[in-house]
């Protein structure tokens, strides 16, 4: 492939479209923000900081969507994990690492419940995960915490929430960026990642060719639950309490980012670079609204509108693909 062709392909790619949107948003807010503070180091760090939880949620959901399933539960699972962390840490003498392990296990359990419903009982994944998340995990958070926000006072949690590398980069930013890098490489380069794409393309064909979509499905739901729980732990550490609404509303922007990332429903396509860019777009946009002092009541409208925008982009690029291969795909 020649260099010219490579450039041409890049200009046609979704990554390029996303970069353009990102640059446009950045330019807009930079121009209109007071003292051009939008692009200050402090503000950029704060955008990255606001992305941390979304990154964790998006990784799990991305893998599932590429695989051809869906997950709306991790936000609620995060809340449940946060509430569990606060309750156990404040009420018992169990060492902090064990408590964290319990939280992650809790996430895995919720993920496995999703997987059972989807694989064993053939419930469509979005309704199954919505039910498990918005009823089971949410109810669990209420029950374990007795309906109160329990304060956390623990040095490790403090460190997790406030430590900054070189006094600039928060440790959670490093954790999340490292995670998305690792998962990105796993997805792009390993046998495991390849299997996800192949199953997402056509599960039955993949099964008949010797892959094990069922096992993969359990793994990916468990993984998504675990990452959701991890995000919940980080969230609780930031608030220093197990908040009852916690990360409930976080699944939604994560899904938006996933679709922005060119990870289409129906499975089999997309990558982590797009997902990361999608998250940058959403968080830059929300951050911009905040520094321009737009009422927080608008966030729901903004995130819905961004999701519609992401879907529209997906539609446009799918139309191009459809035209190329003449309609009938899997």
């Amino acid at each position, binding site marked *: 492939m020649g260099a010219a062709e490579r450039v041409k392909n890049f200009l046609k790619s979704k990554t390029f479209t996303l970069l353009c949107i990102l640059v446009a948003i950045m330019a807009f807010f930079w121009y209109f923000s007071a003292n051009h503070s939008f692009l200050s180091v402090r503000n950029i760090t704060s955008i990255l900081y606001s992305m941390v939880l979304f990154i964790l949620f998006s990784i799990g959901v991305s893998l599932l969507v590429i695989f051809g399933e869906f997950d709306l539960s991790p936000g609620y699972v995060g809340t449940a994990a946060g509430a569990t962390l606060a309750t156990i840490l404040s009420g018992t003498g169990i060492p902090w690492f064990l408590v964290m392990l319990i939280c992650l296990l809790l996430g895995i359990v919720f993920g496995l419940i999703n997987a059972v419903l989807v694989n064993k009982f053939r419930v469509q994944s979005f309704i199954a995960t919505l039910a498990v998340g918005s009823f089971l995990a949410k109810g669990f958070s209420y029950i374990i915490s007795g309906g109160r926000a329990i304060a956390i006072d623990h040095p490790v949690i403090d460190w997790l929430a406030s430590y900054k590398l070189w006094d600039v980069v928060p440790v959670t930013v490093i954790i999340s960026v490292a995670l998305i890098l690792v998962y990105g490489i796993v997805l792009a*380069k*390993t*046998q495991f990642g*390849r*299997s996800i*794409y*192949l199953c997402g*393309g*056509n599960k*039955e*064909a*993949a*099964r*008949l*060719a*010797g*892959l*094990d979509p*069922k096992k993969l499905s359990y793994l990916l739901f468990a993984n998504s639950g675990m990452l959701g729980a991890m995000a919940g732990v980080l969230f609780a550490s930031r608030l220093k309490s197990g908040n009852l609404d916690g990360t409930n509303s976080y699944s939604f922007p994560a899904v938006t980012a996933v679709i922005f990332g060119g990870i289409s429903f129906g499975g*089999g*396509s997309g990558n982590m670079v797009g997902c990361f860019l999608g998250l940058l777009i959403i968080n830059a946009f929300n951050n911009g609204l905040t520094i321009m002092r737009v009422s927080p009541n608008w966030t729901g409208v903004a995130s819905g509108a961004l999701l519609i925008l992401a879907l529209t982009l997906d539609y446009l690029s799918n139309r191009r693909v459809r035209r190329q*291969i*003449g309609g*009938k*795909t*899997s």
Partner: protein
Amino acid sequence: MEKLLEFKNISKAFPGVQALDNVSFSARGGAVSALLGENGAGKSTLLKILSGDIQPDAGSVCIDGEDRRFASPYQSIKASVSVIYQERQLLGAMNVMENVFLDDLHEKFGIVNRSELKRKTQEIIDIFELPVKPTDIVGRLSVAHQQMIEIMKAYRRGSDIIAFDEPTAPLTDKEIAILFKLIRELKERGKIILYVSHRMAEIFQITDDIIVLKDGQLVTTLRTSGTNERELVKAMVGRDIGDTYSNLKRNEIMGDVLLEVKNLETDYVHDVSFELRRGEVLGFAGLVGAGRTEVMRAVFGADPIISGEIKLEGKPVRFKKPKDAIGSGIALCPEDRKDQGLILGRSIRDNVSIPVLSKLKRGLFMSYRAEEALAAEAVRKYSIRTPSTDKRTVELSGGNQQKTILGRWTSDKMVTKVLILDEPTKGIDVGTKAEVYQMIHDFAATGIGVIFISSELPEVLNVSDNIIVMQNGRVTGRVSRQEATEELVVAMSMLE
């Protein structure tokens, strides 16, 4: 005035294949015109254009001299055209009368007139001499009765043009007799009838004109009364079919028993037993739906087994999933290449490497070079026509898709002992078919046991060493190639 249906210079391309290439012919009222050709000749595409399901790239459909372009099935129905599809388009959860009167529910002010529907449906049922009630749920009827209901749908409309796509495939003799009676009656009423079938006997029994297609082009049009089977076959395949088989270099060496299946019982098949030897090509003949595919899926671990015994190289095995079967050296090329064989959105390379991904790694990561080498070898070995292994398999022609799947199972990283080919030549052109036959015997020569399922009798009779015949989920006969004749196998696969 006699009615006239004309196809004028119709062309239609799909990715990787020119389905129709400048086809022109006409069909007259009061006659049955057969559309004849092998799988992939373009018959179904023509019918889909006639029904408005798809639109031609060029050319037009003329009815009584008037140019018609059907943008949707609705327009085609309005122009008095009915097409009976091979894939039945029924609503399994609804009853007979609603299926028959799908697009005309006899509404008065929007309210369905059930008693009227019931009465009219009963009239049609009587004409069709079918033992069903208008209120029976269609999904619970037998396949043959479902097919008759599909035909009722078109009959009820009283359309001037009626096209049948392989209507008799799931029918028994009794229903075929009724159907033919109805077709003759429609003919006498001056209707234009198009009739697609693979069964030669039927063609001579019921049709007046024959239109022969091959690889999307019109070969010739003939009067049925002025031709014979031999001439038709020659027109269809473009050469004497005998050559294909006599040029085949057969594998003559057979080894010990490789795969042994005893009293296999699943939801679909009953008491199935057979043996496969090393180097043997074992044919499975029978009608569509006889249970051949289901036997193989069970052996392969794709469907659950109720009881029975499977031995591979003398050792009892029972595979829970295809992965385990593949690990033991069994490979399956499914009948439905596009939905079950290939992952259409992925490249040739990705499709070839699936079962051996773990052998193509360098450290933790997939090795591009190893994968590319594997795929390139398949492309070279089977002369798959493609500019590179990057090409997505959706863009390949049927033959090249099949070769990609064969490439997957016969790479040097695989240890395939038993190769199951389910309708491997479906929808691919004659030239490639001959290549596939040769491949089958080349595989056999390396000691692989090949199971070859095919619904095309000449092919399964001539390529296989031994033939197993199935009917209604049971084995009804076993013959060697020397003993097998078409009459014998047809009798085993159709007679009670």
